[in-house]
């Protein structure tokens, strides 16, 4: 009975305390109180969360008049959360997201155009190709900058060193990557004794194939007379066809990995069921953490076609249009994303910093864990063409994902896949251009 009473009392006290939490985003401050800024962060890896918290603490100690509250969100549902918070007028001041999500929020007027607020040092430290990923129509006939890009992902190949050495193939370097032909030949050589040369995890095939399609100049979208349509010509088909060939013609790709998510094939990789896994650079973290003792692996650059270009999206920090303290928020972003701090954040997330100073940090260029290859691949990143397409998200989920999954499962031909991507895709895009 006592326990029950104590629990009830504790519950009432907690609830009463919570009543004092107040509503709204919590960013307004009394005249003599410090300015309060809410920072929604999506960091989730242990080292990355620690780096974020450390930087926020450093800022708060050095800036007693601008206090930042660290709020941890999740990639899985951040956009649902933001839609509601924007509509309700309680969005955080500083928002971590990725560049594909910014376009819609910017066109709805929820994000602040940072064009005239960016400090010169921050602006010059980040290359224009990265700024392009966050530059969108401002709805007034101009272009606005709706976030500061700070981490990018490129595709690399994570390879089993033992199987790679045994195949006696040329080891590609950042300066001299394999061509797609060499990559296919290497995969064929490594396919023997029940193991495959490569594994393509294609549960979510769209971003990966669209980004790699730029190797052959494949853009998948074209704009003419202000109208954007889908195109699947020879350039767009090239990478699709080559992956399909590895699966069904060369039989050098593990069919079991096809329906898997990015990290799912790793256990089979450690066991030597296949030699190479094309993946985003961040997957190296999982390999470091999970690989059995004695397992040797290397990071190889992605193959090149007519160029080594890859489409890039960026992780970004934006400021909510409704923020009461946009200047203070910008000061915090400038500190948070300076060269030194970007290196810490990139290391924590195993991604590539956009800051040129950060990219020169010794930690970003060491051979250990493939950082040299990963960082070098950043020079091939160009803004992903789909980033600026209004309606891309719907095209991706309703048209492209099922069409590409069927194609890679060999249920439809490349012509049928192309027809779906174009015909069904254009119907989707049309709705966004009325």
């Amino acid at each position, binding site marked *: 009975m006592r326990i029950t009473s104590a629990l009830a009392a*504790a*519950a009432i006290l*907690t*609830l009463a305390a*919570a*009543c004092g*939490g*107040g*509503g*709204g*985003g*919590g960013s307004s401050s009394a005249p003599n109180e410090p300015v309060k800024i*809410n920072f929604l962060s999506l960091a*989730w*890896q*242990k080292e990355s*969360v620690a780096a974020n918290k450390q930087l926020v603490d450093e800022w708060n100690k050095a800036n007693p008049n601008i206090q930042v*509250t*660290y*709020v*941890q969100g*999740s*990639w*899985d*549902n951040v956009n*649902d*959360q933001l*839609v*509601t*918070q924007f*509509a*309700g*007028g*309680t969005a*955080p001041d500083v928002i971590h997201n990725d560049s594909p999500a910014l376009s819609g929020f910017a066109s709805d007027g929820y994000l602040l155009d940072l064009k005239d607020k960016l400090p010169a040092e921050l602006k010059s430290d980040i290359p224009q190709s990265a700024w392009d990923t966050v530059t969108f129509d401002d709805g007034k006939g101009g272009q606005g900058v709706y976030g500061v890009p700070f981490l990018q992902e490129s595709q690399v190949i994570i390879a089993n060193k033992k199987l790679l050495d045994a195949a006696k193939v040329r080891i590609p370097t950042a300066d001299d990557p394999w061509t797609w032909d060499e990559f296919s030949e290497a995969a064929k050589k490594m396919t023997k004794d029940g193991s495959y040369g490569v594994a393509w995890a294609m549960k*979510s095939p769209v971003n990966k194939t669209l980004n790699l399609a730029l190797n052959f100049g494949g853009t998948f979208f074209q704009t003419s007379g202000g109208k954007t349509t889908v195109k699947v010509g020879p350039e767009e088909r090239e990478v699709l066809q080559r992956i399909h060939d590895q699966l069904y013609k060369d039989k050098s790709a593990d069919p079991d990995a096809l329906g898997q*998510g*990015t*990290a799912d094939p*790793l*256990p*089979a990789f*450690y*066991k030597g*069921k296949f030699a190479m896994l094309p993946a985003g650079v961040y997957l190296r973290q*999982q390999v470091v*953490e*999970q*690989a*059995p*003792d004695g397992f040797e692996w290397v990071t190889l650059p992605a193959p090149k076609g007519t160029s080594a270009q890859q489409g890039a999206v960026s992780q970004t920090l934006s400021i909510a249009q409704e923020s009461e303290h946009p200047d203070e928020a910008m000061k915090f972003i400038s500190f948070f994303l300076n060269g030194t701090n970007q290196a810490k954040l990139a290391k924590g997330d195993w991604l590539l910093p956009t800051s040129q100073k950060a990219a020169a940090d010794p930690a970003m260029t060491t051979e250990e864990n493939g950082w040299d290859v990963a960082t070098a691949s950043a020079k091939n990143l160009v803004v992903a063409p789909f980033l600026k397409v209004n309606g891309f998200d719907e095209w991706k989920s309703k048209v492209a994902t099922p069409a590409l999954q069927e194609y890679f499962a060999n249920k439809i031909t490349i012509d049928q896949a192309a027809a779906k991507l174009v015909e069904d895709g254009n119907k989707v895009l049309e709705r966004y251009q009325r």
Partner: protein
Amino acid sequence: MRRVLQYVALVAYVVFLAFPLLWLLSTALKTPQEMALTEPTWIPREPTLANFGDAFGEQDLVGAALRSLVVALFASVITVLISLPAAYAMARYRGLLNKVAIGWVLVSQVFPFILIIIPLFMILRDLDLVNTLPGLVVVHVTFTLPFALWMLQGYVRAVPRELEEAAAVDGAGRLRSIASVVAPLLAPGVVATLLFSFISSWNEFMFALVVLQNPDVMTLPLTLVRFTGPEGVARLGPLAAASLMATIPSLIFFAIIQRRLKSGLMAGAVKG
């Protein structure tokens, strides 16, 4: 022999039900290397508590669990307090209004909540309830109430009117017969409804995500999701450890309350 088979079937069923929990426990005690084996192991080869250390070290799991407990307790008790008299009225008073009310309760279950989440958020904001646990309690009560009402109504219907009539013959008024005759017989129904409301609130994620923005008021489901990254990649060890700890309070709550889930209370009550 038949008895043995019955026990075998029972044990198999219990193992089937306990499987997710046992797997969670096994995963929580594994190293990242062991989690990545192609042949999964049941019993960790090198058990480790590091996942628990990471889970508790990185997130305020205890605080989040306490807040979830407070919200779930308040939401479930308030739900039962409101739905009990309403269920009695719906079960006992027949008429057009009653039918319309029951129909409306059912229709309200059809709406996907994502449709109303923005207007609901705005109402809460205007009431200054965003970012507060009472705000979340209000939302949970609102959304659990229709089904709780529907559940309890079935239990009230199962209590024979004759018992109330017998009480009336003995001189009891309506309130007295409800308090002394109907209410005790409804105990299993109340407990079942309480459990349903508690577990619904304890596990609820989407409303909590939208209503609670301040880290100091976040509930357990919001804390658990922080161990997941993009494209379904998750930190399985700390997630399993945290999820295991998250199931314990609801298991304890169930263990305490399940003794009240007795059936057959009314057996023979109206033999005649």
